[in-house]
């Protein structure tokens, strides 16, 4: 059951992720944004399967609930039109073909020789208090540094989006 669900969610994530950037039917930015929402929801499904309930919920609250709503907001506000279909050039075709062959080779070789480590050290079984404790001890510094990242981002966003008085 778990395995089946994993494949379902993983497939959904990949297919939706593909449709975000290379949707053959529609090139409207709104459609892309909505497929991104689906990608994120499927990702949070994967988190649930890992018993990381907190991460799953936060994934939805932050990305689906806030970040992508802002994407849509901006798309609608700027009234972005559907992107023009890209012409496929010969160079792109050859390059893409080469990459595809290389990837195929990797996919053939990697599963034979690769072995991912089964589980990382921080195994908290979706327990929110344990996660909180980790954030305030072991990962305190990255946590604090992220607040600086946010400050920089905020200052930058305000700075760049404001009209210059000319």
């Amino acid at each position: 059951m778990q395995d089946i669900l994993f494949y379902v969610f993983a497939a959904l994530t990949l297919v939706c992720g593909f449709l975000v950037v290379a949707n053959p039917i529609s090139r409207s930015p709104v459609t892309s944004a909505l497929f991104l929402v689906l990608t994120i929801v499927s990702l949070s499904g994967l988190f649930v399967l890992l018993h990381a309930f907190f991460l799953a919920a936060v994934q939805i609250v932050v990305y689906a609930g806030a970040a992508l709503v802002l994407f849509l907001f901006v798309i609608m506000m700027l009234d972005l039109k559907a992107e023009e279909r890209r012409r496929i050039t010969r160079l792109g075709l050859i390059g893409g073909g080469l990459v595809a062959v290389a990837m195929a080779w990797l996919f053939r070789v990697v599963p034979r020789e690769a072995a991912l480590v089964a589980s990382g050290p921080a195994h908290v079984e979706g327990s929110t208090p344990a996660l909180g404790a980790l954030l305030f001890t072991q990962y305190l510094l990255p946590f604090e540094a992220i607040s600086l990242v946010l400050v920089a981002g905020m200052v930058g966003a305000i700075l760049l989006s404001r009209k210059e008085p000319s």
Partner: protein
Amino acid sequence: MDLLERLTPIEQSVTFGALKVVGVFAIVMFLVAYAVLIERRVCAAIQDRIGPNRAGPFGLLQPLADAVKAFLKEDFMPAQAHPVYFWLAPALVMIPSLLVVAVIPFGSTLGNPDNRMVIADLNIGILYTFGIASLGVYGIVLAGYAARSKYPLMGGIRSGAQMISYEIAMGLSLIPLFLLVGDLNLGAVIDYQARGLFGWLIFKQPLAFAIFLVAAFAETNRLPFDMPEAEQELAGGYNIEYSSIKFALFFMAEYAHMIAASAMLVTLFFGGWTLPFFGLDQPASTFWGGLLHIGIFLAKLLAMMVLFVWVRWMWPRFRYDQLMALGWTRLVPLALGNIVVTALWLWLKAG
């Protein structure tokens, strides 16, 4: 009962689960229908009118008449509309509010202590409600976009900005609660409140309640924050191009949102299914005691809904910039301050 006892525990829990889902769904839809009636009657009383009283005794069959009317009207789609999104939007508006109810404990037990009256007892209950509720905005934004027309688009944009702004205040307002309770599970929140009347979190965290209430009004798009609809400015906003049953879905979704918000308020601040008298704050040991708890929950829910309705007919609408200013410059700092004060208080208490 014989039939039940012959089932394995897994089959039992599946059966109970299914029964709970069907029961909760039925009750919510019933409440949605009658919330409309309540709204119209309360509005009429406030405006010194009588309100709908023709269909059935006291107008009790009015929701049925409304439903029939909605189905029989022409389902019109503007030629320039985006067909997929136009169909998707009403469904997307409705679904999240129905999903939120899944984690709300609407009663204790029906005699059997293993069978708690909540559809999904998640250990991150509150985060789940936030996650799902935040998806509700997509329906409105999409509806605004799909119609490819001016007013709906403005409604959609407004709703996007409004929802995000108030979600932050809403989330921050609840953190002090969880500092006190120490758990994100809604069942644990109710257990915490089962200590007499002043154990209710509304008395311990009145500021959090006030912020949450204001944010809940904004999240449900109810007056005084119904900017996305704003009949006088946007002529109905995001749902202007909709008719027939699709419009009815938007209409119902508003009440479903209201029910979900009321259920959250009752659970978080008013002790959920408990009452501090007659030992009603302990899980029921009999079937009838369990029903009584569900009744208490529904009664509190109805009271909250009447509050929502009452506010709608008493307050004028905010201006858009006022709405943003209130959210960002008042509620968010207040909620942050509340977190700090609560944390300090807990720290001092712990010595």
